[in-house]
């Protein structure tokens, strides 16, 4: 087969793959919209933001459908996780890329990849039997926003570190060499030259990790306490959008079920915004 024939065949094949992937995404969104339609009609968008509470088991007329505490729960838990994991992950990446001797760096990278592969239920179980009792000793009841953020931070730390490491590795050699020629110390080179150059990739990685934190379900469900409320402190229990769906979907019928699909829709919207922001950051960094 000549190279040109191969290319002619490749184009439709690759295009089909792209179309299928896009179609799956569109079908999922269409499905979410269709399933949440009854609730959007019977309850109305406003009540998902302004109802006094979340008690959806009674039908549309008698129930309450305020999703906002859970939007807040998801965002706060993910924000806390990012605040913990981003600096730690960046430090891990800098260590890997510029400080560690090569054998140690490659071992450390392998450990990071291994960490990224631990199933979330394992983190959740550890959180439930070790972390939650520790937090309870500090401030009862134990299952809390703090527990959720800590577990999520642990889960997204490898993602942040691996992506930041890749971004640092992509910084042109010449920049490091030029910095060395100017007589800059290694610390000065890293923090004033390499990290600023790689900031777009690093920030993109952090946002993607944030997206993963928002989407995580099982581990969070086990440690966050699942009480529907806007927390007053990090020791208060919260419920995330994902935990809400997982906790109630199996038992929901009618408007309750449709309302859970509205949670899914809200979650999809939040994650899309994050991915969009991540792409914007990477693009602006590429032009800088």
């Amino acid at each position: 087969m000549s190279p040109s024939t191969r290319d002619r065949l490749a184009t439709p094949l690759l295009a089909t793959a792209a179309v299928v992937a896009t179609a799956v995404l569109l079908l999922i969104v269409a499905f979410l919209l269709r399933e949440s339609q009854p609730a959007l009609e019977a309850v109305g968008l406003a009540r998902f933001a302004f109802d006094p509470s979340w008690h959806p088991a009674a039908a549309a007329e008698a129930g309450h459908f305020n999703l906002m505490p859970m939007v807040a729960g998801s965002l706060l838990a993910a924000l806390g996780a990012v605040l913990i994991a981003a600096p730690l992950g960046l430090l891990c990446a800098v260590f890997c890329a510029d400080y560690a001797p090569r054998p140690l760096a490659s071992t450390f990278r392998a450990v990071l990849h291994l960490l990224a592969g631990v199933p979330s239920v394992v983190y959740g179980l550890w959180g439930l039997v070790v972390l939650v009792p520790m937090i309870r000793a500090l401030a009862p009841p134990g299952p809390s926003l703090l527990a959720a953020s800590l577990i999520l931070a642990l889960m997204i730390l490898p993602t942040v570190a691996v992506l930041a490491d890749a971004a640092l590795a992509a910084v042109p050699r010449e920049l490091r060499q030029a910095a060395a020629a100017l007589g800059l110390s290694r610390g000065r080179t890293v923090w004033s030259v390499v990290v600023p150059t790689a900031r777009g990739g690093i920030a993109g990685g952090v946002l993607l990790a944030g997206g993963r934190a928002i989407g995580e379900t099982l581990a969070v469900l086990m440690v966050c306490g699942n009480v529907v409320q806007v927390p007053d402190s990090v020791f208060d229990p919260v419920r995330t959008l994902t935990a809400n769906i997982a906790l109630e979907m199996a038992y929901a019928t009618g408007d309750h079920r449709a309302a859970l699909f509205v949670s899914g829709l809200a979650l999809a919207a939040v994650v899309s915004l994050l991915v969009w922001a991540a792409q914007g950051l990477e693009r602006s960094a590429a032009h800088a």
Partner: protein
Amino acid sequence: MKTVQLLMLAVCLLCATSSPAVLAKEKLVVTGSSTVAPLVSEIARAYEARHPGARIDVQTGGSSRGIADARAGLADIGMVSRALKPDEADLLAATIARDGIAVILHANNPVQRLSDTQIAQIYTGAIRNWKDVGGRTAPITVIHKAEGRSTLELFLAYFKLAAERIKPSVVIGDNQQGIKTLAGNPDGIAYVSIGSAEVEAEAGTPIKLLPLAGIAPTTASVKDGRFPLSRPLNLVTRGTPTGLGKAFIDFARSKAVHHLVLEQAFVPVD
């Protein structure tokens, strides 16, 4: 050429998707309550052993799903861990066992009994510290179930509480998560099915079951109906069951499965 292959593929897919309908004579789909499912799985295994060729598929998802699936015809039989409500009169229920709900505390909690009023006050946030009911000075961790669970409905109905009035510290999904959460929290209070709680307590999990209205939560008091917070475990069908469905329900209500009911820490009905 391509069209012919596509057509063949489509035909194959059609055959594949319609084959369950052909096999349905020997296959029974049972869905619903996670309380009833372990028992029905055991009964199904015993039934399959006696009747090779029969396939009984048991899936959990809560009593609400059992009702909905039986109604919609998605399942041949629904599992429901409560008596049917008036608006569910279109379904037929066959009781295969009884279960009770126990209020449980951590084994190290010095409190030995709580009145119904006290339990209601704890769950509505009127009592927030164990010292107000004769215990340690420690804030109470109120462990509550997620919306839609039949345990929650039964609990609320018994204590005459509205769902909106409950002030939980932790919301959990199934019985096991509740027992694990309580075992890790000496200041907690939870309610779970007596079957699960008795088995866990005997296995050494640090929990204790509180008497209600002076009656100890035991399988015996559930069986003779004295324990106030108890419920029937039902298999429900749309219309009178026939064929394999009828045979399976009759088997599930027979003396032959009493040992399975007892193994699951439920109480057989006669």
